[in-house]
């Protein structure tokens, strides 16, 4: 479980405070819990609108866990870390302990 690689995509719309906050929050969470086994792709739907429809993006920011399966979505600026961890099925050391 811990060896799984996380392929994450973060959809944002422009350089809004929410976007920036989401990017920063995601990076922090990944570094803390998924160090060395994650990849983040940030997609600006404002610049690539066709991707919004293709990837069923409604709210922004939206974090999509593409791998491991199943697909998971977390919307919001990812400021509530416990919800993000729950959404990404990341088993924290505290939880296992």
């Amino acid at each position, binding site marked *: 479980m811990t060896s799984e690689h996380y392929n994450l995509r973060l*959809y944002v*719309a*422009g350089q809004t405070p*929410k976007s920036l*906050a*989401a990017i920063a*929050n995601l990076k922090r969470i990944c570094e803390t819990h998924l160090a060395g086994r994650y990849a983040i792709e940030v997609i600006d*739907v*404002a610049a690539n*609108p*066709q991707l*919004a*429809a293709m990837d*069923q*993006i*409604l*709210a*922004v*920011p*939206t974090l999509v866990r593409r791998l491991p399966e*199943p*697909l*998971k*979505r*977390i*919307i*919001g*600026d*990812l*400021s*509530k*870390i416990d*919800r*993000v961890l*729950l*959404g990404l099925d990341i088993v924290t050391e505290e939880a296992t302990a």
Partner: protein
Amino acid sequence: MNAEMMPPVLPRLAKAATGVPGLDEILLGGVPAGRPTLVCGSAGCGKTLLGMTFLVNGATRYDEPGVFVSFEETGKDLVENVASLGFDVQQMMAEKKLAIDHIKIDRSEIEESGDYDLEGLFVRLGYAVDQIGAKRVVLDTIETLFSTLSNQGILRAELRRLFGWLKYRGLTAVITAERGDGSLTRNSLEEYVSDCVILLDHRVLDQVTTRRLRVVKYRGSAHGTNEYPFLLDDQGITVLPLSSVGLRHRVYDEAIPTGVPALDAMLGVGGIYRGSSVLVSGVAGSGKTILGASFAAAACARGERSLFLSFEESADQLVRNVGSAGIDLQTPMKTGLLHFNATRATVYGLETHLAVLQRELDRFQPTVAVVDPVSAFRGAPAEVHAFLLRLLDMLKTRGITTVFTSLMISNDRMDQSDFGMSSLMDTWIALIDIESSGERNRGLYILKSRGMNHSNQISEYVLTDHGIELMPPYLGPGGVLTGSARLALEAQEQADGRRRREEVERRRREIARKRMLTERQIAELQTEIEALEAESSALSTQEADSENIRVSDRAAMAVSRRSKWRAANGGDPPPEVTVRAR
């Protein structure tokens, strides 16, 4: 000063036609252009279809491409669902006249963490609109978001922003919403979209569904305020702004034949007036349908378009049945002059029936119609009466000459089973049962016919294999004689006639004989007179002769006597007195 005197010239509210038959009439042109319109209603009342029709019509008729944002059905489902209505959405999508964006939101795979907005929706919508240059947008049903996203505060703020954005982009939008308890929409969307609100409704009464549409509000425009029935069937949505009862129909002086020449003769003007309504009432099996069919067949034969609304028999059955009475409906059906609309009266509610009829009339444009029978409509008498009145008005305002048949329970016309319909009719033809001498025959009489000096006779109504025939009535001591009683009387009258003629002939011969006798007598008498005259003249001659003779005799005698006298007396005899013939 001038401004007070004259109303300011305001730009009229621009409208976008929906292209839904009837709806644009109610909306006096269409939904407000460049603004959102809310369409609310309960599940299955046709919101999605209305939205799709709005877009398809925009794309195909008004050169306004549209984007359908579906929150429920997938694009594939939508395309398939409307394909049955003849909408080739796939083709329109290929031509960039229409775009469908299905927004799939699965509550189970979404976690919320912190602040977000719905910019993704804006981006997608904006992108789709820009791709095809859309002027119209449908959001169906955006309320789904309320059950997916837990942060109602964000959602409401974003919806407000969305509607503002739609207006800003000048998009004519239709937003569908579920009907809520005690409110127009479950999530009070009417608070955000309030330029135009259309309510769709389907009500079930006595197990019959009637769909209705009402324009709840229309900011800046007048609109029809009633509830209007609408149809949702293989021809899409048809709203029917049924006109109110009016007496403004055109009046025609032309009389058109009924298909039964003898009946035309009875009506006095050679038929019924164009645009008038005729009620044919009668008991079961009195031949109402056949009379109606005969009327339709005659109209078709004149090249008129006839609509036959059958509520009891299927088209095929009716055609076959009246065919056996020599009325050919098959041919006009084939040529398209006759159109059948056979439905059970109980299939829909009364409103829907009117709606269907209105659409049929609009499409087929008949000049003649047969409604067979009006008595098939059941319900509260007041409702049925109102229905029939509107039905009648609908036909009359279009100048359609209509024959309504109506089943009566008994021959007694006071037994009103026609919901007061007879008083609305211009002509009322009653078909009655005449039962006597162990048989049942049909009679026909004209109860009333406005503006006509019609016959008051009861004629015998005979169905032959070559159509309807009206026999002249025979009045016997017990009333009108029909059937074999009539035939018997006819035969008797023929016999009587023959006897009378023979009698007359006999008497004529008698008179001739007497005359001959008399003439002969006269001749005899004449002969007698002549004989007498001859006798008389003979007598005169005789007399004269005898006188002469006597004179001559006397002379001779005298000569002889003188000689004797002279011989005895010697001398001349005394002169004799001359006896003259008197």
